[in-house]
């Protein structure tokens, strides 16, 4: 449930595994390089990775390294999912290399840049790509910290048998380095206490399964239907979890569908800094917040993604006739965004979208009845100035609304309606171009929320 005004959790969110972990920066750099060697050799030896444009890009040699160093940086021609989805996942490995070696959040951030630059020069035969550094480094920070914090919540060191095995297996994608270490040290099957302070003070999961209708790619007015699945998570709560460290509060949303690209949406945002502006006992609370966001939207009709730094306010209005209202108002600085358009991208490559920095806003309202979110409305706007692709300025708006009706305490039905709109103005006197893509979904929803835990007994 939404916390009572002034509620404070006694457990502090802290993803460090020990009270004062020893820092091993040199080992962290080596492990980040190890991630690169591992991924490169998997690509070269196991997957035999190649594409129609770059060929067998993982078969690196000293000659390819020399060519990359001599050439310098370019904007690459890779497809949307490779650049905007896979690169952040690889970046998360560099970030966790720091966290696993005792470095804190900020100390681990340079590793994503170092790991990415090393990969660009030495991990692929293709020329080093500027957009890859952005997506790997900033996306890696976001996904790296999120997965680092989730892994200890999935694992349970006190569990035994099949339950223990399943938990250890489920944690592998979140923290592969840690899973290998646990396997080698025997921690994966040894029964001992869980790390204290892993629980963020509040935790909410939501699962949706249903049908969606949307605009198909290419044709005007064409519609297509598919099955859609969504998982959304809130780790911590802006009004329960006092700010202590970056990402002690974050939200993550992942949507998949049976049509087109399987992963359709990934949106992860974690707060970097927060300051309460009101009395914590008040029914109306406002928190100034700075957040880092990774966004990926890949519909058949449009593609949009990017890394942004958000600055704004999270406000809560509690206990009005059983309803709680939370609003979010953010201004966005988009470090590097990507959007597709008819003239966008680079001819002769897999890239059909432009890259550019920009600015935007993100407004959201969430209304809860007891613990159940009954209404969510969001309006996201962005402006991107192309630095690679067609010389253009893109203006994007994405309003959406979701309504859910609770049938039990945690189960209900719901509906979603969203509308993506893009307007692109081009240099060189070309006419402006617009595109709209409505999207609807109907679904069953399961929502669970866990509030503050009672204080843990001292071991």
């Amino acid at each position, binding site marked *: 449930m939404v916390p009572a005004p002034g509620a404070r959790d006694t457990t502090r969110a802290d993803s460090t595994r020990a009270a004062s972990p020893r820092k091993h920066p040199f080992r962290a750099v080596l492990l980040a390089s190890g991630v690169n060697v591992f991924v490169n050799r998997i690509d070269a030896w196991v997957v035999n990775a190649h594409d129609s444009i770059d060929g067998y890009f993982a078969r690196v040699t000293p000659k390819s390294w020399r060519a990359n160093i001599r050439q310098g940086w370019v904007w690459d021609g890779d497809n949307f999912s490779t650049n905007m989805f896979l690169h952040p996942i690889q970046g998360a490995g560099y970030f966790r290399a720091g966290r696993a070696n005792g470095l804190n959040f900020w100390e681990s*951030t340079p590793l994503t840049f170092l790991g990415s630059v090393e990969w660009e020069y030495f991990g692929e035969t293709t*020329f080093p790509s500027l957009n890859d*550094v952005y997506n790997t480094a900033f996306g890696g920070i976001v996904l790296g910290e999120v997965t680092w914090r989730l892994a200890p919540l999935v694992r349970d060191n006190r569990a035994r048998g099949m339950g223990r095995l399943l938990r250890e297996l489920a944690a592998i994608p979140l923290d592969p380095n840690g899973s290998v270490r646990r396997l080698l040290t025997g921690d994966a099957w040894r029964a001992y206490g869980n790390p204290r302070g892993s629980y963020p003070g509040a935790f909410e999961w939501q699962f949706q399964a249903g049908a969606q209708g949307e605009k198909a790619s290419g044709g005007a007015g064409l519609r297509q239907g598919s099955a859609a699945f969504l998982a959304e998570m809130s780790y911590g709560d802006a009004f329960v979890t006092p700010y202590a460290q970056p990402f002690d509060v974050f939200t993550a949303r992942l949507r998949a569908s049976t049509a087109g690209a399987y992963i359709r949406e990934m949106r992860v945002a974690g707060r970097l800094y927060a300051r309460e502006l009101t009395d914590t006992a008040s029914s109306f609370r406002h928190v100034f917040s700075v957040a880092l966001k990774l966004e990926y939207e890949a519909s058949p009709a449009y593609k949009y993604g990017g890394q942004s730094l958000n600055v704004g306010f999270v406000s809560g209005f509690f206990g009005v006739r059983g309803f709680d209202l939370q609003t979010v108002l953010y201004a966005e600085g988009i470090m590097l965004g990507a959007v597709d358009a008819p003239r966008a991208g*680079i001819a002769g490559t897999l890239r059909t979208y432009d*890259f550019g*920095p920009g600015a935007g806003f993100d407004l959201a309202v969430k209304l809860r009845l007891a613990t159940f979110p009954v209404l969510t409305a969001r309006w996201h706007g962005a402006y991107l100035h192309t630095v690679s692709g067609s010389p253009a300025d893109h203006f994007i708006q994405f309003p959406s609304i979701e309504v859910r009706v609770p049938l039990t305490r945690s189960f209900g039905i719901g509906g979603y309606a969203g509308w993506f709109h893009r307007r692109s103005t081009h240099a060189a006197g070309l006419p402006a171009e617009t595109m709209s893509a409505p999207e609807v979904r109907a679904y069953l929803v399961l929502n669970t929320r866990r509030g503050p835990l009672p204080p843990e007994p001292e071991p």
Partner: protein
Amino acid sequence: MMATHKVRCASAVPRALGAAALLLGALATGTAAAQTPARRSLWMDAGLGIGYLRLTCANCSGIAANGAALTVTAGGGVTQNVLLGVQGQQWQSTTTGAQRQQVRSILAVVQWYPWRAMRFNIRAGTGIVRGTVAPAAAGAQPGTVRGTGVVIAFGVGYDILLSKRFAVAVQAAEQIAGLGDLTVGGVLANDVIAYVTRVGVALVWR
């Protein structure tokens, strides 16, 4: 687009970076008698250095220019090992007249001291850049053009403590700026990327 033109690194830059690396190495192995520097308070540095600009684009031949760079950074410490700040940098070519080139940037930076007791540091950041540059697009008349885009920066430094609050830092850094497609001399230069390599000395206060 994979740029296919060939650009040769001028030998001056590797030499300068090599000299800086040697200097940093010598300092790193030198006296360690100084106290641990304060890194939790406000932080500012201002530095001057020599800078070298290299321009590439998909349909250009490589072009390079020497110049001077001024860098000012201000921020604060978030941990004993990490500083966050905002960095402004201006690089200007030594050439005068119509061919004078200039690259200005403003970035959010993170500076990391991997070893708490040591003064070696790594700086990385990103931000916005505005450049007046002269890309040599095939078939274009020589000239300069202004572009705005994104910049990413990497660098290393070493602080030589003068007191608890003041230090002199030796810094080497590279900025990679994507300026987009620019029309110069009637020809479109595709995907212009400007590299500003800087070696300099800064006065640090914290």
